[in-house]
């Protein structure tokens, strides 16, 4: 059969307890933008089992240093950090050539975005977006500054903990991932409506980056490790 030479990848439905809740009390937009009807089950055909390739021909790729607005320019304010990790499938195999997009607030919790109406200071040396390809071992790394927390305007108490957004293009339409990464030990993690909506303890802990052993040297950077697991399992034919 054509196409059967390489290993087949299977996509199973998400286990809901390892994912964020779709509707969240206190986050009103989830109650106006989440479908009421049950999502329709469908078979997967070539259309869903394929996905964009060669996006580097369409998108600007290669900026993974967010610590300055321009190469060689003045540094952004804040604690300098490095985030490194791997893009993996559900069985721990590296996903190479994945487009990894990341974006975040500045050290004061302010985004460069027209919809960020808070009066927190803008840092002219911080833009807060990066995009790169994972290497042959699935690795990616970004140099940045630690984002600040920020208040959610529609709420009278909710502050988002410091977090970094990731958007990843895996090998197919089914393996697209959009997620957020949190920092270990932040007290705001405990009250965040999004993070705490992930009910499975292990799945929730995997959303929090790991601080690597600290070093003091020429470049003083706190290093964090964070792996991203895309959907997809390689299946071996059963012997029944």
């Amino acid at each position, binding site marked *: 059969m054509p196409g059967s030479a390489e290993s087949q990848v299977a996509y199973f439905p998400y*286990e809901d307890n390892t994912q964020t809740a779709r509707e969240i009390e206190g986050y009103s937009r989830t109650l106006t933008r989440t479908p009421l009807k049950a999502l329709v089950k469908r078979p997967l055909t070539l259309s869903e089992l394929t996905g964009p390739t060669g996006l580097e021909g369409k998108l600007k790729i290669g900026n993974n240093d967010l610590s300055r607005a321009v190469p060689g320019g003045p540094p952004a304010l804040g604690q300098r950090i490095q985030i490194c990790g791997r893009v993996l499938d559900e069985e721990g195999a590296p996903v190479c050539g994945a487009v990894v997009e990341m974006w975040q607030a500045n050290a004061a919790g302010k985004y460069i975005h027209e919809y960020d109406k808070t009066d927190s200071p803008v840092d002219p040396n911080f833009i807060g977006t990066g995009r790169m390809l994972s290497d042959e071992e699935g690795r990616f790394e970004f140099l940045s500054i630690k984002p600040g927390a920020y208040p959610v305007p529609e709420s009278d108490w909710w502050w988002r903990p410091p977090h970094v957004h990731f958007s990843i293009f895996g090998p197919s339409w089914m393996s697209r991932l959009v997620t957020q990464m949190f920092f270990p030990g932040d007290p705001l993690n405990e009250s965040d409506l999004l993070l705490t909506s992930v009910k499975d303890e292990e799945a929730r802990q995997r959303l929090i980056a790991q601080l690597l052993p600290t070093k003091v040297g020429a470049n003083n950077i706190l290093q964090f490790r964070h792996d991203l*697991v895309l959907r997809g399992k390689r299946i071996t034919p059963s012997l029944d």
Partner: protein
Amino acid sequence: MSKKSTPPTANFTVGPFFPAYFVEAGCNDLTRAGTNTAKGQRVLLCGRVTDSDNEPASNVILEIWQADANGIFRHPSDPRLPEADPGFFGWGRTLTDQQGWYRFVTVMPGAQGGGNGAPRLPHINVMLLGSGIMRRLVTAVFFGDEAETLRDPVLRCVTDVTARCRLFAVRDPGLDCESAQAFRFDIVLRGQRETPFFLD
């Protein structure tokens, strides 16, 4: 002994601050790949995204994925990849404006059929990300003859006939521009006239 597998990382909303920088100029024009131009009938796919209160859903990111004019996906899993149109990537991204409008310029996708693959009507996969959308919403827009609905294994899963009709693009010659045939596909995120979305 089988190795323990790890469930996928939890999906989150993109929030309200998805960088404009990531919606590059030309991202919503699929008819160009590098210096090549896509073959086939040019199509303007546009519509409005609304929420449960019938309010425009602004700042929603849409991404699409489709086959080229001959029904070939630019992906190694498609056995017809060597014949794929070099002028067509098949992927695009845009975001809705204040009134909830989006638009893509693309080509009419070909059907799939025969051989070993499942027969599919011409269609474009659509996904939505946005503030309040905790996990991406996935749907598809179909072109062509509604009478052939039951040939498509995905479309026929939408058993509610009224809802299924909402997945067909509506030809709107009044919006034609630059030799592109316009098709309208409105998306209702929630409510009585909700668009069918697929289990992801």
